[in-house]
C-alpha cells in the first residue's frame, strides 16, 4: 500500500467510498486550505475492498457531520501528537442546507435560484431526507 507520511496533527477522513474523495474535497473547499492535504484513492480495505482516504494536516474547524449525508460509512480520526485522540462517528444532522440539491423540476427551487436548498431528515434509520418545499426524497449513500 502507498504510504503517505504520518500526520503529527490533523484529521483523517477514512472509509470514503472509492471514487468519492474528490466530491468530499470539493464540498469541504479543501483547495482553499493552506496546508498539506493528501488524497488517497482506491486504497485496499478489508471491509470495503477499495476505499478513498483524505488526510489533512493541521487544526481544522468545520462541522463534519454533514459528510454523513453524502456517505455514511465515512469515519473521522482526529490526530494529535502522532496519536488518534478521537474517533468520530458521523451522526446525521436534522437539517442540511445547500449540501444536496433538489432535483425535482416541479419544485419552486427550480425557478427561484436564490432559495436555499434545504432538506430535513424524515427517517433516520433509512437515511431519508426530504426537500422542505416539495418533499422530494433524497436517500443518503
Amino acid at each position: 500500500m502507498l504510504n503517505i507520511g504520518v500526520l503529527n496533527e490533523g484529521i483523517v477522513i477514512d472509509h470514503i467510498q472509492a471514487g468519492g474523495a474528490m466530491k468530499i474535497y470539493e464540498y469541504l473547499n479543501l483547495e482553499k486550505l493552506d496546508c498539506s492535504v493528501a488524497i488517497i484513492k482506491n486504497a485496499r480495505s478489508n471491509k470495503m475492498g477499495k476505499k478513498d482516504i483524505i488526510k489533512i494536516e493541521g487544526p481544522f474547524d468545520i462541522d463534519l457531520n454533514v459528510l454523513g449525508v453524502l456517505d455514511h460509512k465515512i469515519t473521522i480520526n482526529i490526530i494529535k501528537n502522532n496519536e488518534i485522540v478521537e474517533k468520530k462517528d458521523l451522526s446525521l444532522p436534522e437539517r442540511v442546507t445547500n449540501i444536496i440539491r433538489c432535483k425535482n423540476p416541479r419544485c419552486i427551487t427550480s425557478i427561484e435560484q436564490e432559495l436555499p436548498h434545504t432538506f430535513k431528515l424524515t427517517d433516520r434509520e433509512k437515511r431519508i431526507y426530504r426537500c422542505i418545499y416539495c418533499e422530494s426524497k433524497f436517500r443518503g449513500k
Partner: protein
Amino acid sequence: MRHLISPLDLSVEELEHILCLGQEIMESPEKFSHICEGKKLATLFYEPSTRTRLSFEAAMLNLGGKVLGFSSADSSSASKGESVADTIRVISSYADICAMRHPKEGAPTVAAMYSEIPVINAGDGGHNHPTQTLTDLFTIKTLMGRLGNMTVGMCGDLKFGRTVHSLINAMVRYPNVRFVLISPQELKIPDYLRKEVLDQKNIEYVETDQLEQNMPKLDILYMTRVQRERFFNEEDYIRLKDSFILDANKMKYAKKDMFVLHPLPRVNEIATEVDNDPRAVYFKQAKYGVYVRMALIMALLGLDKAKL
C-alpha cells in the same frame, strides 16, 4: 400565527374543530355574515383555477370580509421576475390572510416562511391541495355523520391524483377505514403511499381494476378523471376507459346510502345521467367547500374558539 400548507398540518382535534365550525356555519350562515368585517383576503393565483379561487372569495364575502388578488401569473409581478418571498412580504401589508395557488411545488411553503399573515395553500402543482381535502372530509362527515368505520372506494387516476393521495393520508387517521383502490394497472397508487402509509399503518385495502363488482362494498365512492395522456398506448386506453366511467347501470349495484364524491371538474368519468341520483353529491360537495373554507379563514384569523 398558523398557516395551512399540507392537509396533515392540522391535528385530528384541530380538524374536528374546523369541521364542527363549518357545520355551525352551514346551519346558520347569518350568524357569521359580519364576523370578518374589515378583514381582507388576498387570492394569489399564479395559475388559473376558477373553482377554487371563487370558492375562497365566496367564503370571505360570506363572512363580511373583502377580497383582492390576481388570477394568473401574467397579471402579477411574477411576470417581471418577482420572487414569491418578495410578493408575500408586500401582500402582508395589504391583506389579513391569503390563499395561494402556484404551479410549482412548495411555493406556499416559501410564502409561509416570509409572510406576516396566515397563508393557505390553494394548490401547489401536483403536491398538496389541503382545502380540497378539508372539503372532502367535511362532505363525508356531514353526510355520513362520521369519518371512521367505512369503506372508501377511490376510482380513476390514483397515481397522479393529488386529491386521492391527500384524502388517503387524512382518512387513515380515523379508525376502521378500509380502501378499495380501483384503477388501471398504469395508474395505481404510488409505491410510497402503499408502503409508507397503508402497509405501515396496517390499513385494510384492495387494489383492483373492477369498479362494478366492488360497488356493493362501498360507503363512499371518490371518483377522479382518467386522462387519455396518462396511458402508454391508445389500445389500453380504449380497452379500459369505460371501466372507470360511472353510469346509472353501475349505480344499481351500489348501496342505497352510498355517496359519490368528485373533486371536479368532471369530464366524462361520471355520466350526466347519474347527476340526479340522490347519492351523487359532487355539486353539494362544491357548496360544502365554501363552508369549510369559511371555517378555516375564521380559525386562522383567530375569530373563533377553533382558532389555530
